[in-house]
């Protein structure tokens, strides 16, 4: 085990300590014990930046299930480094923030930090594991811990609803991902990502019949996790989680797991034109749809959730265009698009983390997150206002903040795709920058709503439950650090570009060092005019928002309705279906069993040409057999038509005795003896049952005739007869009985062959037949004597 392994496992091991510290040291907030771990991890990962920026990877592997090719292989390369730093860095800040956000006396802190550390460890596992099966394991742990964190306040029904919804959707995607992983294994013969990429480079798998299926399965996994259209619906409902959780899981880390997966597996699938089209189209649709719906939200966290969806869509579409660059061997486009994706990934984590924390502070200090009740908080909460302003401006893409830089790069890459002249990108591709541009205008609008509707305008103290004041310093530290990062990355993007971003880009598609330069000033390029257009149109739209926001009432909330309808309808339909065929009547179930039995058997018999009549093996029929058969048939049919149950019992006895006579005729004395005794005993038992019937059930009444019963019984008889004839006609091997005949006396010292077989040659069967009789006897005895509460009911 290398240090890297321990780094992944450390949060899991650390969770063992949390309940202990929580119980023993009640006076100190548990978060303080948790805080050192992510800081330590952050320091450890940063100390390796030198390795990754020189494009080397730290690789370690220990066998886990070597016979199945599953190793706990970890690999820290540029992309893994970027994500690890985000997870550990923002993790530290979120834990610091949660110390001030969650009350140590009112909340179950031990549970909270256990779930959070589970999540952190799982997320590190997802981004560092090189083995797809291990990656999948950590992937599902993120789903489970996210479920637990969303439902943290499990006494609220909204929390439970949101938790279940996110669980259902992400686990659906997770299972699909597992299918994709298995398909990928079938295509390449390895679970290790590095080996898969090497083998794909040697012989392309694009013509493999499983290629499309595997690609779609993996895309489904990534899209559900990263809340892409139309699987985005779980993210707004996940806002019922405590704000530190929303800030950490649902903006900075977990929702980027899908993006990580797309980036990681791009070298495998980017050769296919479908991959780049699906990824960039879904991304761009998500961008527009999320930003459009975000404007409508009145809840701060709801708005941020839709904004997250939209920004994730933007990163996704950039990855798709990066893949297009690979597909058409156009290095510069792929570099610009991928750089934009990676850069925006970092930027989004910083500003969205700070905005969520800002929303949490507003909620904490005013008692509401409803925009309609907020306003005029600028003078009361100046620091929070500054945080919100910087974060929102960066989100809107205003210079000189980092959001501006990545948005410019985004426009540049969107415009670049016109250069491709395949897959109709030259004609239909012109739509992509337009959609992106419209989406950006809406992004601008909701960013402005977020900051100005909350902090400017009229102060309405009568609508707030508490008297607002500035948050405590401890709560402000984390968002301040994040917004200062927003400013620093905006002013000095070079800090990031060659240390973290460039190695991450290289590790997505391979290739050499790319000297990444991020400038504020590109000259008078089209993207600059697009940004100016965004600001102009965005301002106009923001100022007139009350006039046109009525259109939202005309647009129904489709996808949530579909989800609820699907759940309700599936439950209803299956309830109805089950109620329909599970009638509770044994007669119906017997009809199912028998009709299925006849159908399957006759179908098999006739399709496999198994029906054969061969008379050569038949023995001649003697007179006694004929007479006995006549007796048997007559008494059997008489049972069916008898009017009283007593007659049926007697006739059944007659049948049994006739059978014993058959045994005599066919020379089986032991069977005849046993049959006679057993028949007598069972007839006596039937009579006993008859005697205990209630009076009105004893009245004479023949069996009511039902056509379906008659048809099925005739069919069953017919099929069994046909099978018996067919199987008798095809005798493949000689009997083994001559052995018994020869050896009964010689080897087993007996002359009665039946009895020797029963107790000597095949004595084991007899042993368990004895056991069956013993069980039956004990069962009858206990049923008669043990009446737990039965007597009481009888008396009633």
């Amino acid at each position: 085990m290398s240090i890297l392994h321990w780094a992944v496992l450390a949060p899991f091991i650390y969770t063992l300590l949390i309940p202990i510290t929580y119980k023993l040291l009640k006076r100190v907030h548990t978060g303080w014990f948790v805080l050192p771990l992510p800081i330590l991890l952050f320091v450890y990962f940063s100390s390796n930046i030198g390795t990754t920026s020189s494009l080397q990877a730290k690789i370690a592997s220990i066998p886990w299930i070597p016979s199945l090719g599953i190793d706990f292989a970890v690999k820290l390369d540029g992309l893994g480094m970027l994500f690890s730093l985000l997870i550990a860095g923002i993790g530290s800040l979120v834990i610091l923030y949660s110390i001030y956000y969650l009350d140590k006396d009112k909340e179950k802190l031990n549970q909270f930090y256990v779930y959070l550390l589970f999540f952190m460890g799982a997320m590190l596992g997802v981004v560092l594991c090189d083995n797809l099966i291990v990656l999948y394991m950590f992937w599902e742990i993120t789903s489970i811990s996210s479920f637990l964190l969303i439902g943290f306040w499990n006494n609220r029904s909204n929390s439970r609803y949101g938790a279940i919804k996110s669980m259902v959707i992400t686990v659906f995607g997770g299972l699909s991902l597992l299918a994709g992983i298995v398909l990928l294994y079938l295509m390449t013969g390895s679970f290790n990502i590095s080996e898969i990429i090497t083998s794909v480079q040697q012989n392309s798998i694009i013509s493999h019949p499983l290629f499309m299926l595997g690609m779609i399965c993996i895309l489904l996994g990534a899209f559900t996790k990263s809340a892409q259209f139309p699987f985005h619906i779980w993210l707004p409902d996940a806002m019922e989680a405590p704000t530190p959780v929303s800030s950490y899981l649902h903006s900075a880390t977990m929702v980027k797991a899908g993006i990580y997966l797309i980036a990681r597996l791009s070298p495998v699938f980017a050769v296919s034109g479908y991959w780049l089209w699906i990824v960039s189209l879904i991304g761009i649709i998500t961008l527009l749809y999320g930003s459009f719906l975000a404007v409508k939200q009145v809840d701060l966290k709801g708005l941020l959730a839709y904004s997250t969806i939209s920004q994730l869509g933007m990163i996704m579409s950039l990855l798709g265009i990066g893949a297009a660059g690979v597909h058409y061997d156009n290095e510069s486009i792929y570099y610009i698009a991928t750089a934009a994706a990676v850069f925006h990934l970092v930027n989004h984590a910083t500003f969205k983390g700070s905005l969520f924390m800002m929303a949490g502070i507003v909620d904490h200090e005013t008692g509401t997150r409803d925009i309609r009740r907020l306003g005029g908080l600028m003078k009361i909460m100046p620091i929070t206002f500054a945080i919100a302003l910087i974060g929102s401006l960066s989100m809107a893409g205003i210079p000189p903040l980092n959001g501006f830089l990545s948005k410019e790069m985004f426009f540049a890459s969107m415009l670049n795709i016109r250069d491709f002249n395949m897959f109709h990108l030259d004609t239909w591709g012109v739509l992509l920058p337009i959609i992106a541009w419209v989406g950006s205008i809406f992004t601008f609008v909701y960013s402005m709503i977020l900051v100005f509707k909350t902090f400017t305008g009229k102060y309405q103290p009568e609508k707030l439950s508490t008297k607002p004041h500035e948050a405590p310093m401890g709560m402000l530290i984390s968002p301040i650090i994040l917004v200062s990062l927003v400013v620093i990355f905006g002013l000095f993007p070079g800090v990031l570009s060659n240390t973290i971003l460039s190695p991450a880009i290289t590790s997505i598609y391979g290739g050499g060092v790319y000297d990444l330069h991020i400038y504020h000033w590109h000259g008078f390029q089209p993207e600059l005019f697009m940004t100016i257009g965004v600001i102009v149109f965005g301002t106009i739209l923001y100022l007139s928002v009350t006039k046109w926001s009525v259109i939202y009432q005309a647009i129904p909330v489709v996808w949530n309705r579909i989800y609820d309808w699907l759940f309700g309808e599936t439950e209803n339909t299956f309830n109805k279906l089950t109620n329909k065929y599970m009638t509770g009547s044994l007669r119906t179930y017997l009809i199912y069993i028998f009709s299925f039995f006849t159908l399957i058997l006759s179908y098999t018999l006739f399709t496999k040409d198994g029906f054969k009549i061969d008379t050569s093996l038949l023995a001649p029929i003697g007179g006694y057999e004929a007479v006995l058969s006549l007796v048997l048939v007559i008494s059997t049919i008489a049972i069916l038509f008898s009017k009283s149950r007593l007659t049926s019992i007697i006739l059944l006895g007659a049948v049994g005795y006739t059978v014993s006579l058959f045994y005599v005729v066919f020379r089986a004395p032991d069977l005849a003896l046993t049959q006679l005794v057993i028949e007598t005993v069972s007839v006596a038992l039937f009579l006993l049952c008859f005697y205990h019937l209630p009076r009105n059930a004893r009245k004479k009444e023949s069996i009511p005739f039902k056509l379906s019963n008659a048809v099925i019984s005739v069919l069953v008889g017919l099929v069994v007869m046909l099978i018996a004839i067919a199987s008798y006609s095809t005798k493949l091997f000689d009997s083994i009985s001559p052995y018994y005949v020869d050896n009964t006396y010689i080897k087993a010292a007996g002359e009665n062959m039946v009895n020797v077989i029963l107790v000597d040659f095949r004595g084991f069967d007899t042993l368990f037949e004895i056991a069956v009789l013993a069980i039956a006897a004990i069962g009858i005895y206990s049923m008669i004597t043990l009446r737990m509460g039965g007597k009481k009911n009888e008396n009633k």
Partner: protein
Amino acid sequence: MFSFVLHASLVLIALSMIGFIYRVIKGPSTPDRVVALDAIGINLVAITSILSILLKTTAFLEVILLIGILAFIGTVAFSKYLEKGVVVEHDRNNH
């Protein structure tokens, strides 16, 4: 000749058995049926013995004895049931 006699008697017994079965099915009252059943049992004894002569074996002699015992027990049990409504009485002091 001997074999013919045996076969003929078998046929006759079978015919009488069919007659008894008719009585079992038709029998207007339960005692009719019980008596017919008892007679069938005795007929079975006869059939079994003639069959063992025909098959030239002594293996079925136990069957003959058993049928006799069972027919007796069965008829007694039926009769008791018809008379008292129970076969085995739990209350030993009251009979």
